[in-house]
């Protein structure tokens, strides 16, 4: 394991040396000589400008065709990592320590007019280490090695009405982005939740193809056709489909201005038996006895000055075959999140947020009910285009289960580095 880390660090170091001028600058900010707040309300949450830039295939809206390509600029590489101190408490017991919470290597840019790419690699972070003999003994890494994203975007195929994304990408129904969430330790709980026997993860980036576009006035859609297995090879003949629609009222994209509402639906199939001798070179198997599941929900984002109130919720039904608790019943649940963000100080150097997550499993499931109350403060040390560092403090009080609920408190103070 040490060897892996050494290799990674050598790799990272080599990258830094290689990229010289590129060193220490998030790829896009460097390209345009701007600071992060050009596209982010505050890193990593996108503002309206950044949202339009993303929707336009990482090209400045209205300026496609005049972008420098990734070959004409310094290599567009960026890193994000965070390290800090956590204090955890449950049932009167506490534990604490310093940790590295994540490391992303990102590269993104324009390849040709209206063709661009985004690549995000997360190396595995073994924490606790693999040779550690405690409870998890390294089986529970802080981060899995994965190609988080590797997508090519073909933009403006029919003006802004049709753009195509192919590869692994963040699906368009995640208008409340689990990737660009201020919170580093507290996820959107409902995204990651599924029937007791299902491996589906609503928050995962998915492999497949997606069409997106916008219509006046302020109507946007995303239509996808994907494996539904996250980073893993496909496990059945059926692919999953989704459709998300949103409408913005007023100016902006609903990120930092304008008011936005959206609805989405996801229909997927997962095998319940995997006995099949055929495994493709890509690792795909043809799992049998596919059962379906669906999610249907909506989201809202309201803006007032630099306050942003977001809400999202969905209702989910996983086929009874995914239900270990009562195989006679479909596993039905719902949940959501309400999040209030605020930005202050010049150039949004200070961010505060309150968030409430809830998950409501069926009544007979007495372990999966979740109520999580979170709060966060982030202060950005600078607004340089070269590097951004935020001091981040996050607190969550989480109650899970109904009978003898587990109460947990987690306080984390960390530095979020982006360069």
């Amino acid at each position: 394991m040490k060897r892996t880390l050494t290799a990674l660090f050598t790799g990272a170091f080599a990258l830094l040396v290689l990229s010289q001028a590129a060193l220490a600058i998030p790829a896009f900010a460097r390209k345009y000589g701007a600071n992060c707040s050009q596209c982010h309300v505050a890193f990593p949450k996108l503002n309206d400008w950044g949202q339009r830039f993303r929707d336009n295939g990482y090209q400045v809206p209205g300026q496609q065709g005049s972008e420098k390509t990734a070959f004409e600029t310094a290599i567009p590489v960026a890193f994000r990592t965070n390290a800090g101190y956590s204090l955890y408490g449950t049932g009167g017991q506490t534990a604490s320590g310093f940790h590295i919470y994540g490391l992303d290597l990102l590269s993104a840019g324009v390849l040709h007019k209206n063709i661009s790419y985004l690549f995000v690699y997360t190396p595995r972070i073994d924490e606790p280490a693999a040779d550690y003999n405690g409870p998890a003994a390294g089986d529970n890494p802080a981060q899995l090695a994965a190609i988080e994203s590797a997508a090519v975007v073909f933009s403006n195929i029919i003006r802004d009405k049709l753009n195509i994304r192919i590869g692994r990408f963040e699906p368009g129904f995640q208008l409340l982005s689990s990737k660009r969430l201020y919170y580093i330790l507290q996820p959107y709980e409902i995204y990651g939740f599924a029937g007791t026997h299902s491996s589906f993860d609503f928050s995962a980036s998915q492999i497949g193809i997606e069409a997106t576009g916008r219509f006046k006035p302020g109507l946007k859609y995303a239509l996808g056709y994907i494996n539904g297995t996250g980073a893993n090879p496909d496990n059945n003949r059926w692919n999953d489909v989704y459709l998300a629609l949103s409408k913005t009222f007023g100016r902006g994209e609903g990120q930092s201005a304008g008011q936005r509402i959206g609805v989405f639906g996801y229909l997927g199939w997962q095998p319940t038996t995997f006995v099949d001798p055929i495994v493709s070179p890509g690792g795909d198997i043809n799992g049998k006895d596919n059962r379906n599941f669906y999610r249907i929900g909506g989201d809202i984002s309201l803006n007032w000055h630099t306050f942003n109130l977001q809400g999202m919720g969905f209702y989910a039904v996983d086929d009874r075959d995914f239900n270990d608790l009562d195989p006679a019943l479909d596993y039905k649940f719902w949940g959501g999140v309400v999040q209030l963000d605020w930005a202050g100080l010049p150039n949004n150097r200070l961010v505060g947020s309150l968030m409430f997550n809830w998950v409501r499993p069926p009544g007979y499931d007495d372990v999966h009910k979740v109520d999580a109350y979170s709060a966060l403060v982030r202060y950005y040390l600078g607004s340089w285009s070269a590097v951004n560092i935020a001091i981040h403090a996050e607190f969550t009080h989480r109650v899970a289960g109904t009978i003898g609920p587990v109460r947990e408190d987690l306080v984390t103070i960390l530095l979020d580095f982006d360069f």
Partner: protein
Amino acid sequence: MRRIVLFAALLVGLLAAAAGTASILAGQKAPPITQVGVQVLGPQRLGPLPPVVHPPGNPPSSAKIQLGKELYFDPRLSADGTISCATCHDPALGWSDKGPTSEGIHGQFGGRRAPPVSNAAYSPLQFWDGRSPSLEDQAKGPIQNPIEMGNTHEAMIQTVSAIGAYQSEFKAVFGTGPITVDQVADAIAAFERTVVTTDSRFDRYARGDHNALTKLEKEGLEIFNGKAHCTGCHWGPYFSDGRFHNLGLPPKDPKNPDVGRYAVTKDHRDMGAFKTPTVRDAARRPPYLHDGSEKTLESLIDFYDKGGGKGPNLDPLMVPLGLARHEKAALVAFIKSLDSLNPEVADVKAPALRDLPH
């Protein structure tokens, strides 16, 4: 685990290869943009202006620049001897005029505001709609524009040729032969290329003098280049992308709106789009925008803060900014730090008629 090591090695290799390609391609010139011909969107930092490029057809000389300066300030180029270039591009008013639109010959008003002549040398295309490709070409326009100087080129040449001192100056600069409109334009353009900002408090800061800007101005710079997205259009040393955008200004005369860049390209996307002006020296030349509709920097920033005006062709880069009062003040302070400290921009006295050639 071996897979990870392999992947890391691969990644490094790939990126190294990309680095190689990037450095090879860096030497190659980027393809020109259709219609506009300005730099591609690449690293476009705000910073000091590079030296002015003089076109090969019009090399400068001190005699030519001096002649151009005299012609620029000479009202005798107009039909009735009352209007010079400086009437509408007055050094004391930031090389523009009091606005909102310009008053030309016989008290006539045009529909557009006079853009600054200072630093116009860096603009790839001249006029609000970019209809003129160079300062040389541009300078011929106002003389025979019926509502500006109201003259004809022939009459102007006659007037100039009849002035003894001009005769010898033109001879010294352009050699013998009759004075031509092109020579007049060349001389004025050569002069205009000297009205450039090499020094401002911002430029001093950009060159490394950390105390050249106040705390508020530094905040303003950060916001200009961040939350307010100003650099989305006002980028690079010239603080302009040289492109055309529709900011959604309401037309003064809805029946006969100013179509802007559309008049040149006939491309519907250019309807109501105007050239991004430089922000350098903006504090010296209120009111603002092509129709002079914003009276102060403060009101202009309020306009941007709202997300601009309205209209079907509003530029997609216009979004509400959510600026706090303090942030607006910081932006204004920063814009003021762009005021030129060069005497040839900031401190030019228009010569009196009797001091011009006779």
